[in-house]
């Protein structure tokens, strides 16, 4: 396993895609800060670093889809995965090694993003409004969310030998989950009561508040809230808006997704025919 990690790390740090994606994530971080700064100056409002600090979760989640599929797919496309199997590396170790490398790539991107946030961000927007402990909790949840994203991408990329097919599948999963999270977010955000506006001779009049038929309540609300907390994209949306209701549940869900993906992936990969 150590030999494999050593080999893969040497390949990782020479990988142009990693540095291209890292540059993109860093650029995105700079763009977010500058836009917040310009907005606050134009509107005369106060902007906090908190608004930009956790946007990385979804960005790196998307970049991870590209990186994992391309990095792992290269091993299949160039046939170099065979070199590891022929000389007696166990498939379980190969799978775990690939996962560790994928998480490390995400950590590199995340570190560069935070470097920008805690230098340029503090310079332009000031320190984060949230306390240190909450900040650390959010950063921890963000890391677990990204680890869950990577586990899913590694699963897909290790089981689909075609690099382009794996890339398409990973991106479809990412964007599919984004759409699902956005829909659930919309459902959960629906107000409990609605009021209708009507124009009268006396001007605009508000009707009596009526129960909103689209409002989710009871078990249904619990279910959708759980789904929102469970999905990595749902977690990402919560972190971006700094509106995390159930931090422990989020962390446990990420760990669950990671563990299930790795175990399932290893089980299938162990018996997969490699060409």
């Amino acid at each position, binding site marked *: 396993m150590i030999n494999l990690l050593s080999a893969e790390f040497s390949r990782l740090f*020479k990988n142009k895609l990693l540095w291209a994606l890292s540059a993109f994530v860093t650029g995105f971080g700079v763009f977010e800060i500058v836009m917040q700064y310009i907005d606050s100056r134009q509107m005369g409002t106060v902007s906090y670093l908190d608004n930009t600090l956790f946007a990385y979760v979804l960005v790196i989640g998307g970049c991870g889809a590209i990186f994992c599929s391309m990095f792992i797919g290269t091993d299949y496309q160039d*046939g170099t995965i065979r070199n590891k199997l*022929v*000389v007696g590396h166990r498939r379980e170790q190969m799978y775990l090694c690939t996962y560790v490398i994928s998480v490390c790539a995400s950590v590199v991107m995340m570190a560069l993003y935070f470097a920008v946030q805690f230098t340029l961000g503090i310079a332009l927007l000031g320190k984060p409004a949230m306390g240190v402990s909450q900040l650390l909790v959010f950063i921890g949840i963000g890391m677990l969310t990204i680890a869950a994203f990577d586990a899913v991408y590694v699963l897909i990329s290790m089981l689909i030998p075609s690099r382009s097919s794996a890339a398409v599948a990973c991106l479809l999963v990412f964007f599919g989950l984004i759409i699902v999270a956005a829909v659930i977010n919309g459902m959960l955000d629906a107000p409990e009561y609605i009021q209708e506006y009507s124009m009268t001779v006396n001007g605009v009049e508000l009707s009596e508040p009526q129960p909103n038929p689209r409002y989710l309540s009871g078990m249904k609300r619990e279910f959708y809230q759980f789904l929102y907390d469970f999905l990595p994209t749902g977690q990402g949306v919560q972190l971006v808006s700094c509106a995390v209701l159930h931090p422990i549940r989020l962390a446990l869900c990420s760990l669950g997704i990671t563990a299930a993906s790795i175990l399932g992936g290893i089980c299938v990969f162990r018996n997969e025919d490699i*060409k």
Partner: protein
Amino acid sequence: MEYCLEAKSLCKQYGHFKALNGLSMRVPRGAIYGFVGRNGAGKTTLLRVICGLQKPDGGEYLLFGTKNESADIYKVRRRMGAVVETPSIYAEMTAEENLRMQYHVLGLPSLENIGELLQLVGLSNTGRKKARNFSLGMRQRLGIAVALCGNPDFLVLDEPVNGLDPQGIVEIRELILRLNREHGITVLISSHILDELSRLATHYGFIDGGTIVKEISAEELNAACRKCVRLTVSDTGVLCRVLDRMEQEYQILSDSEADIYGETNISQLISALGAEGCEVIPLHEHDESLESYYINLMGGGRHD
């Protein structure tokens, strides 16, 4: 005799297609084992199975006496190197970087031998050129160099000269012979190019329909492929009488063709035939090749 590889009743099925159908074979240590068979006969499947890329559905194989289901098989695989189908090399890396990667994969402490290895396969002057810009022959040689990284005792090569130009074929042949003779590496080669294989192999395994039809050493094959004189005559009846009289071993091939084995006094034979009114049309020495042996074998005529 010690064997690098022993396969016993190996089976592998893809859907309803039986790629390996109870295949048994033995590769003696120190041999260059030529693995011969038509497309789809199961050659590459066998190589994939013994390299651990695929699991057999039935049967077993032993590498250096260790069973494939044994926990020690992973350690034993360290003694193997393989190029299955295409060379397994990173296209975006140079030759040296590819070897460095494999050294890391193997956990070799020193990278000192990389230069030597590149020299051995004739790639020492490729510099910063990336593998994707290599010719097919260069890629093939780099693939072999990667397979040689851990100083293997057993090298598996799948169609190593496929698609190479004549110069490339000679280079690969010389490399394989050097590895076998100077480094004592046992080589298992699958190939379609029988003429090329006949210049290398010390042992042969003929596979058809996922089963080994025949295993034979090069000496046995040479003995089986006897030299003969093939002649076409106007009357084979007369020819038979004359040859019987001369106590020659022969085989009638058709109404006008026959093979005569052993030392033959041609002028005496032609005179004798002429005396009985039988004309000899063409006559030439015939040396049965690996190719004709293979064709006869796969035709089902001579399985023993």
